[in-house]
């Protein structure tokens, strides 16, 4: 057999071995899991602000046992009777909010974006955990950059 071919095959085998070994180690240490970590269901107090822009906003302060930014918005929508329109993206395991209280995205290049404790939300709303006394804002604004 060609020496170069053997070397190439050996490299491939070593690479696969390292990959598998790393994967097993990461699974055993809990860094990689097959399900989202369970959170203890608890009742927390949150403040939710819907900022429509032009100094027009609504503030809600309520107790909830929903522990992600999206589920808090959904709970508020049901509790305070304002509609939201969303689309679920399975490839990101998250909902995309494109309308809150009949204010839909796309007007003046503005979209619904969330902030948590004044920090811009950088992951999907379904993946962002919420803790007691967190301050959540949904702002209708132009993209951050």
């Amino acid at each position, binding site marked *: 057999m060609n020496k*170069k071919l053997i070397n*190439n095959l050996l*490299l*491939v085998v070593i690479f696969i071995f390292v990959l598998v070994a790393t994967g097993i180690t*990461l699974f055993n240490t*809990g*860094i*990689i*899991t*097959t*399900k*989202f*970590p369970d959170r203890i269901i608890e009742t927390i107090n949150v403040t939710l602000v819907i900022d429509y822009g032009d100094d027009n906003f609504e503030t809600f302060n309520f107790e909830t046992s929903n522990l992600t930014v999206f589920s808090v918005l959904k709970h508020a929508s049901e509790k305070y009777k304002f509609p939201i329109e969303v689309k679920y993206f*399975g*490839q*990101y*395991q998250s909902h995309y909010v494109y309308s809150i209280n009949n204010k839909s995205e796309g007007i003046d290049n503005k979209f619904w974006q969330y902030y948590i404790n004044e*920090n*811009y939300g*950088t*992951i999907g709303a379904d*993946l962002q955990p919420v803790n007691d006394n967190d301050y959540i804002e949904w702002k209708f604004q132009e*993209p*951050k*950059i």
Partner: protein
Amino acid sequence: MIEKIRNNISKLFIATLLIIMGVAGRLTLSELLPDSPALYITINGITQPMFMIDLFFIVAIISIISGLLLKSYYVFLIPISIMLITDIIIGNSYIFLFTWSGFAMIGMIFFILNKKNKLTIKKTPLIFGTGIASVLLYDLWTNFGCWLGWYPHNLSGLSLCYTLSLPFTLWHLLSTTIGIALIVIPVIYIKEHKKINLNYSIKPLEKPMS
């Protein structure tokens, strides 16, 4: 000028084809993307799906092929054309400065190595290694742009930015590696065995009368 175009007709044809494929892929395949699998990774106390699935690999593979088959200016022209056309339709933000240049960078890496005859079938591990390295460079560059625009400008913000980008990077590595195996390697093989003629030029059918 017309003579030059005539002599480069095959390259222009390939460039146009690659642009059309890239645009069509970016605009149509997003609905066909599979759901992110039930695998989660926890880094720095943040748990996320292990793979965030996007269409990065389409423009990446096309950038690589343009670097392998065409001249240097095509390496910039093709990925930027694809992104320009699709971003006008889909929309984008200032991050385009980083994503567009990132794809051009991937193509340029392969173009430079190809010029030095480093990318042959016998050096398949080098091809995969170059693919992995260029994807990592792309993600380092574009996430630097994300940090500038979306995160606090401190070390903590930088760390958060790259932690949150990990699922995208893992998907980019996986999808591009598969794309290299299924598309780039066969293209290199076909090119090596001279099945692609990139120097075709149109010759006149009739000779001038003497």
